[in-house]
């Protein structure tokens, strides 16, 4: 059976591995330089866009539009004194940021940036190298990147970095699973794990015959496999530790997470790794779901859109859209709590990804076997059954909710012990604080006694706020 598929793969990838050494070197250096410059640009871009969202101006002094600001910051940072605190494990302490940055760079080497172009008269694809298992290579590089974080946290010999490193690695492994599962549907459609073949597979849409009407399917997997795309988008934000999933860097809890004890060049490398990782996951998303370097619809009508150096522009444009989404999320959403974050990953993303994969596989099998009509009837039947079940579930859940509400009202009478376990603790939701009236009365009392001492009024308002919070909590539960 491999005879049927292997020659195709060999033919597709034959263009690679034939480059002379100087072309390879040029491409490797070019990608490194590109990622560095792009990172400098991204830092500026992020600061300007976030400033815009917050009605500020952002950096605007150095260079046109402040473009040189992040370059200046980078140079300043790399010239800072290196502080190596007591108790660090020197070798691992130095190795950790290098691993982090190197893995972010290496993953980019299999991303196709364009079709064959001519460099100094030599025709070569705009992609450093292509592997038949390219996507697996990217995932493997990402999982090695976790070591940079674990080791950075551990080798610092300090509490905050250790906790930050553990948190961060637990977060990344949770979302890497969702990321991998989201990609399975793409492999199912393209039948390949090579990035360039996946881009090629998105070149033209296939036609589907539904009840005698021929429909031209869109060619981007981001449209055809929308749930996969959404899961991947969420997972990529979690994987790069960006807001709203930037828990490893939660300043209020962990100072700066695993990089608390880092300074100067080593800190810069972690910083660089974070931004390059953002670019890498965005580039992978572009490749897997948005047709890679191929021109988007209105431009693709122009015949020369997918030739020469133009595709590089389309590719960069798509990556920039993803980067804008990253920044937009940061400007919009508050940071999630760790338990919410884990719940999202393990209870929503992974099960949904698994079910979706099963669905796509079944759909592929039935459709390719020529059972279109049966397939759509099957979907209809499943949807109806699920709807019915959800109605029944809702009815049962509502009844149980009412019963639990009554029960909880009784449980609310639990007395609050301000020194439970020997430490002063805040009241838990549902615990009654002695000496404080229910919210409405407390507010009324506070406003009525506005003339009295400030301290008591403040305490009353605060207590009211707490009561309101716990009420909300109850409503959600």
């Amino acid at each position: 059976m491999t005879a049927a598929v292997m020659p195709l793969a060999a033919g597709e990838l034959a263009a690679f591995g034939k480059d002379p050494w100087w072309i390879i070197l040029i491409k490797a250096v070019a990608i490194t330089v590109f990622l560095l410059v792009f990172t400098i640009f991204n830092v500026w871009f992020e600061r300007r866009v976030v400033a815009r969202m917050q009605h500020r101006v952002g950096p605007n002094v150095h260079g046109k539009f402040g473009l040189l600001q992040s370059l200046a910051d980078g140079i300043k940072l790399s010239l800072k004194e290196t502080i190596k605190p007591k108790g660090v494990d020197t070798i691992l302490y130095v190795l950790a940021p290098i691993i982090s940055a190197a893995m972010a760079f290496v993953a980019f080497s299999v991303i196709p940036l364009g079709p064959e172009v001519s460099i100094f008269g030599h025709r070569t694809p705009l992609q450093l190298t292509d592997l038949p298992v390219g996507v697996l290579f990217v995932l493997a590089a990402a999982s090695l990147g976790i070591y940079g974080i674990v080791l950075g946290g551990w080798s610092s010999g300090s509490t905050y970095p250790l906790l930050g490193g553990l948190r961060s690695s637990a977060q990344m492994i949770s979302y890497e699973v969702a990321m991998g599962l989201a990609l399975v549907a793409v492999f199912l459609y393209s039948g390949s794990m090579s990035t360039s073949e996946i881009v090629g597979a998105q070149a033209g849409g296939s036609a589907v015959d539904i009840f005698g009407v021929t429909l031209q399917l869109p060619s981007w997997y981001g449209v055809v496999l929308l749930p996969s795309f959404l899961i991947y988008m969420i997972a990529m934000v979690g994987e790069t530790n960006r807001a709203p999933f930037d828990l490893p860097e939660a300043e209020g809890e962990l100072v700066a997470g695993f990089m608390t004890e880092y300074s100067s060049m080593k800190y810069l490398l972690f910083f660089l790794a974070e931004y390059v990782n953002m670019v890498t996951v965005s580039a992978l998303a572009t490749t897997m779901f948005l047709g890679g370097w191929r021109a988007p619809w209105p431009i693709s009508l122009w015949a020369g859109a997918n030739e020469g150096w133009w595709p590089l522009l389309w590719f960069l444009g798509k990556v920039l859209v993803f980067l804008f989404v990253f920044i937009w999320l940061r400007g919009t959403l508050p940071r999630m709590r760790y338990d919410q974050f884990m719940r999202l990953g393990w209870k929503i993303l992974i099960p949904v990804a698994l079910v979706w994969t099963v669905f796509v596989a079944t759909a592929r099998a039935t459709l390719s076997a020529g059972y279109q009509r049966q397939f759509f009837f099957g979907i209809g039947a499943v949807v109806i059954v699920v709807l019915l079940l959800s109605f029944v579930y809702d009815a049962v859940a509502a009844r149980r909710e009412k019963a639990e509400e009554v029960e909880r009202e009784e449980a609310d009478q639990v007395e609050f012990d301000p020194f439970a376990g020997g430490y002063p603790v805040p009241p838990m939701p549902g615990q009654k604080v002695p000496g404080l009236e229910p919210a409405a009365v407390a507010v009324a009392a506070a406003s009525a006694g506005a003339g009295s001492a400030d301290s008591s009024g403040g305490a009353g308002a605060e207590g009211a706020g707490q009561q309101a919070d716990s009420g909300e909590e109850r409503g959600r539960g």
Partner: protein
Amino acid sequence: MSTVRVLFVLLGAVAVGSALLVVTTRQIVHAALWLVVTLGALAGCFLLLTAEFVAWVQVLIYVGAVVVLLLFALMLTRAPTRPDPAARTPNAWFAAVVAAAVAGVLVTTLVAGFSGAVIDLDRAEIGGARVTGGAVFSTWVLPFEVLSVLLLAALVGAIVLSRRDVPNRPRDAEAARDTEPARDADDRERSSS
């Protein structure tokens, strides 16, 4: 392909050398990291033998997942940041004998099974995803299905071992400490519905 051969021998030496360091180092976290080097070198060997899918799986699963699991387990010990005096025990000699015996059995099995096999690296089929998938889903289906049962059993075991520290609902934890039977009743009620 003599370069490949030289690299293969070098990587093999790295794998064996770092494996020895795994069992001799006093810092338990360093031991885990030497294990990373061993497994990475092994992945390099697979890569040289044109089994690229297996090589990257080796990196993703063993280096990326299993050793991370090991590191998390090490962090559960009391002091993973210092050299552990308990890392050296009088049982070391016995352990060495057992290890040598296991290695002997494995090497004998391999030599008996594959001593005549020769891979022509110039012409060998490249073990990409399709080739590996073809082999797994046409020839080796039973081991693949058995593996899922093994994973399930190990997962259940890990959960049972750690369950006492993980109460069912955070909000119940406080109440459960005082009224343990009440929580059990709650559990039963929810699992029956």
